[in-house]
């Protein structure tokens, strides 16, 4: 480092730093710039007293303004709930069949229902409501217990085949493995497959039809069209909750199936039940 020298051309001293003969001028900073630095320091001190700032052992200084992001979020949520309370009251009280006539309320219900569904229903029925093996697909037009908006709301409110809600609709398919021989079950499988036009063993059809008439028609109907009052599936359509292969149908007939859905009331409010019913109803399968 060289000694600072006075530079005639710029009337300024150099800093003494010189690199390959290029020297650095020691141009003074404007004083207001210095004051702006002091101002930011003062600001920082006041800010750290006013707002949560200094870390302590298990918490931090709260700041005299009492501000917290958590309280801000809580206030924001309360504000939104307050703003939506009128719509929610209407939604809880509405006759569901008339919901679609009220476009604003219907839109509100569908939007609210989407988040209710994502939080509570998607675990079994999937985020896209396409269901899974044993969990019905809510997008198609096949409904076990009814697919109009009121039936959907009823299912959501009380659930299916559960012990917690005495209004839950209940049915139980017998396990025919105890009553029928293996070849009889195989014949039933072939007959059931024939009902919806699937590939099947034609030699067994006659025996299967007889067995079906004796054992199954009480719930599934003479034509195998099912019965929504009992949640008995339509066996003639292309939608299969558990599958339609020989193995799966044999398992279904021999050991039966017992799909349970929990009741969502009172865990969900009436408005939330109606909202999620409206959401599911407009996913493509609603009747």
């Amino acid at each position, binding site marked *: 480092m060289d000694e*600072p020298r*006075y530079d005639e051309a710029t009337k300024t*001293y150099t800093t003494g730093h010189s690199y390959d003969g290029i020297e650095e001028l020691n141009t*003074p900073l*404007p*004083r207001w710039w210095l004051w702006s630095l002091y101002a930011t320091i003062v600001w920082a001190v006041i800010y750290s007293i006013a707002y949560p700032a200094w870390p302590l052992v298990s918490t931090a200084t709260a700041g005299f303004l009492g501000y917290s992001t958590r309280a801000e979020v809580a206030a924001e949520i309360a504000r939104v709930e307050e703003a939506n309370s009128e719509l929610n009251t209407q939604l809880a009280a509405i006759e569901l069949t008339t919901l679609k006539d009220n476009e604003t309320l219907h839109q509100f219900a569908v939007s609210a229902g989407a988040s209710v569904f994502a939080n509570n229903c998607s675990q079994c029925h999937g985020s896209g409501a*396409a269901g899974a093996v044993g969990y019905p697909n809510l997008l198609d037009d096949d409904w076990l217990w009814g697919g109009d908006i009121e039936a959907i709301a009823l299912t959501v409110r009380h659930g299916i085949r559960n012990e917690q809600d005495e209004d839950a609709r209940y049915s139980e398919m017998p396990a025919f493995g105890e009553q029928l021989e293996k070849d009889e079950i195989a014949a039933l499988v072939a007959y059931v497959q024939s009902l919806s036009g699937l590939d099947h063993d034609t030699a067994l059809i006659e025996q299967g039809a007889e067995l079906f008439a004796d054992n199954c028609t009480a719930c599934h109907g003479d034509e195998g069209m099912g019965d929504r009052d009992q949640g008995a599936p339509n066996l003639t359509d*292309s939608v299969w909750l558990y599958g339609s292969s020989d193995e799966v149908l044999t398992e279904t007939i021999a050991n039966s199936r017992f799909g349970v859905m929990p009741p969502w009331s009172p865990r969900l409010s009436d408005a939330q039940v109606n909202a999620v019913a409206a959401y599911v109803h*407009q996913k*493509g399968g609603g009747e």
Partner: protein
Amino acid sequence: MNNAENPPSLYAAQEPIFPRKVSGFFRTFKWWIMAVTLGIYYLTPWIRWDRGPNLPDQAVLIDLAGRRFYFFWIEIWPHEFYFVAGLLIMAGLGLFLFTSALGRVWCGYTCPQTVWTDLFILVERWIEGDRNARVRLWRAKWDAHKWRLRITKWLVWLLIAIATGGAWVFYFTDAPQLAVDLVTLNAHPVAYATIGALTATTFVFGGFMREQVCIYMCPWPRIQGAMMDEDTITVGYREWRGEPRGKKHEGTTGDCIDCMACVNVCPMGIDIRDGQQMECITCALCIDACDDIMNKIGKERGLIDYLALSDEPLERGGGKAKPVWKHILRPRTLVYTFLWSTIGLGLLFALFIRAEIDMTVSPVRNPTYVTMSDGSIRNAYDIRLRNKHGDDREFHMSLTSEEVLIIDLEGTDLVNVVVPANETKLQRVYVTARRGDPSATAARTDLRFWVEDVVSGERAHTNTVFNGKAADQ
């Protein structure tokens, strides 16, 4: 005095600057630019433009809440933000072009900091007098006279500052209504806060900070340094003509009589005769000042002039400077012009081919398809329709494909949708392939959605695909 034993302070106080009144070509030009730019700024929000009953009638409106930008006959929706991005790129390239050709003309003529500072200096001169009077006032004791002049000046500045901040908010909402609300104290707090902040910055930057903003705060002069070269036309001093400077009777031979006129008019407080310097905003007022003196002493004008550094050796050798167009037309400026106009033409083209009907199709892929009870395969699509008109419009939706596909709309038995004025509508559309059809069994089938305005017959289309059963495998 500074010396090695007594090093200079690390900090320097602001040197007061008292620009003297000047007249001439560039000063007149600058008055016009000031009038036009301030006129545009203050008056634009008040221009009305009829767009129909459901749309705002303000010619230029940035509707942040409604996410619309209106500019006369053009309406920009959020998905068309590339227009704004394109304009910003053009603004950038335009600055590059002008800077490489003409130096810091932006700084000298049109930068808001320059324009408002100029206006504030004008007010200062009206109230406190010209340079000499202002220097005297600055040195004077704070007596009643000084207080009266200072307070008057500050009040006028404050009024201009309030008008400046006030005009800004009118761009963001209906101006006449906001004006009433502002006066009756019914406007949104954000409006008052914005006016307050802009009033403060205008008052401080225009009245007190002035050249400090350009020298210490603005990054643009630093960037401009990289845009300029020896062919850039910029304000300079013909040192080879002016030196040695001095009074005539002292026997000097240069044209510069060292009258300090160029220094006295400079709003940046520099001496252009020291050569190119960071502080110079090329406002050209020193040219006017010097030309005035040259006229008076009967010398050729242009001792201080717009000139290119590459002309210096020519002129020193007694030759003539190259013509201006030879300086301006060089690869660098041509490339900038080409880029600038290419983007401009591209944007114009995009503007003219903008469809009046606009739709985006987003296929629902969760799940890829649904098997219906009759064995048919259904896909769902979320279609967003945009109606940019001021009236409700009814659209007919259809599809074309090489295979048989059936279209249905959620929530209606019809295939027509009404989209309210100036809104978008999200409509779920179902497409179904019958059981056993090729489209039901194949992995993918191409299809094209059509929307058609039922009244005008205008149509638009979007291509997408239909997923069949093989899509899973």
